[in-house]
């Protein structure tokens, strides 16, 4: 697999086209809406997180951007849904995941994202070798991190 193909795996292009969680839900009782922007390319994301006690109840988002940023947001939602199940993922776990994700992406390919933990988002491992694209992949995750702080 060439560098480019590992960066743009099928799974990534799929998520970029069929975006999970796309379209903002109505704000709930304990929700926060966060706007994040990549100053380099002007891409933006608006992400809304709804919390229920100490759990992440729902995450929805809107925005336009490159396939890395779009699929990363979609994969994040998928991960939260799959791992969180009915009740939603504990906020503490979500925060920890974001931290691990950041660390792996900033590792320049040294730390892979494992599929057990990151599900489809593990396909984003390849991004960490492209330092200029790390910001794209982080956009939604940083937005969620801020949303969880504020919700």
């Amino acid at each position, binding site marked *: 697999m060439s560098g480019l193909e590992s*960066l*743009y795996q099928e799974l990534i292009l799929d998520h970029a086209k069929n975006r999970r969680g796309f379209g903002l839900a109505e704000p709930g009782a304990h929700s926060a809406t966060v706007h994040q922007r990549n100053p380099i*390319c*002007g891409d933006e994301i608006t992400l809304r997180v709804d919390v229920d006690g100490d759990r992440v109840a729902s995450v929805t988002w809107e925005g*336009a*951007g*490159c*396939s890395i940023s779009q699929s990363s947001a979609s994969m994040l939602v998928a991960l939260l849904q799959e791992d969180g199940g009915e009740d939603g993922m504990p906020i503490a776990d979500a925060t920890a995941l974001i931290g691990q994700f950041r660390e792996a992406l900033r590792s320049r390919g040294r730390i892979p994202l494992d599929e057990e933990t990151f599900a489809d988002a593990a396909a984003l491992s390849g991004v960490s070798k*492209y330092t200029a694209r790390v910001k*794209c992949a982080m956009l939604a995750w940083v937005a969620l991190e801020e949303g969880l702080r504020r919700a």
Partner: protein
Amino acid sequence: MTLPFDVAAVRADFPILDTEIDGRPLVYLDSGATSQKPRAVLDTEREFLERANSAVHRGAHTLAADATELFEEARVTVAAFVGAEPEQLVWTSGATGGLNLIAGSLGYAGRLGAGDEIVVTEAEHHANLIPWQELAARTGARLRHIPVLDDGMLDLHAAAELIGERTKVVAFPHVSNVLGIVNPVAELVTLARGAGALTVLDACQSAPHLALDLPASGVDLAVFSGHKVYGPYGIGALWGRDEVLEALPPFTTGGSMITTVTLDGAEYLPPPQRFEAGTQPVSQAVALAAAVRWLGAHDPAAAHAHEATLETRMREGLRSIDGVRLLGDTDAAERIALQAFAVDGVHAHDVGQFLDSRGVAVRVGHHCAQPLHRRFGLTASVRASAAIHTTEEEIDTLLDAVSGVRGFFGVAAVTA
């Protein structure tokens, strides 16, 4: 009879052009962002630093005299490059520094107030936009803009309506860094002069590609950056008419721009020193002079013809690729070999990444021209920009790579 332009010889002057990207030769099409530097520039700066380096305009020692001489000769050379006298050329940190100097100095001079208007264009680089926004906000003046038409040309009818007796400044790019179109300097100068307004020309993108005669152009002030004309970072130049510079107060202050300083006040030197506070980018000035000398050593007509060939090949080639939309798609204007475009269904960032895998370095994003992108309904585009060292084969590599983009991203079948 002109000899054919020897692009291979030109390329041999640029060490970086031998770089390989993932096993493919680098195709550097990002000279609009920053140019590469020929060996003559690198050698000149190094030689200066190894043989003559010392503080200029100071002291009596031999090195200082040598350095001062090289520094002031550099001013003569760079001034001549734009048709000007050395006294009219102010060193700056770059075009952004020069534009901030102009706007800031006009502000300090109290030359604008409520009721006054500043006119820019919709095609502005942020460097020729935000300093005017700030000046307007500080002085109460109003900032207006000349719209860009669908084909990328400035709306001169609108300009004629906009520019009037309230207008104090008309600032515009000689060549937009997104559209590549040479704007009608003479027409805009006529409108501005009719209104008694000062004209400010952003010559960043024209300086590397067009022969400039700033005094003859009719504008009052102009700026460009060293790093875009095959010279170093950290230096640029501001040119101004004698009487215009004479009337401007300093923007930044400090050493080497004064005659007498007491604890309570200072008297300033005449231009250009008045605007050159502190230690100047000395080795960079000397290297910038080497850059414009290097550029001037090529037959200008042949170099221009070469770049014009690249321009046509690139624009027509891109236009013929399915799903590619050009920004500023017109045959009606003079242009430089710089073209921004969007690929339907594929984000500019992804296009850039794909091109990089083919060795093709382009710029993606808003190119510091958000309002212009918004005008065309985009947040980002891809921009390819050629230089004197670019070959037709490199343009073909670009075109070939762009043709593969939509297929790779599964947006549409590759066109046959």
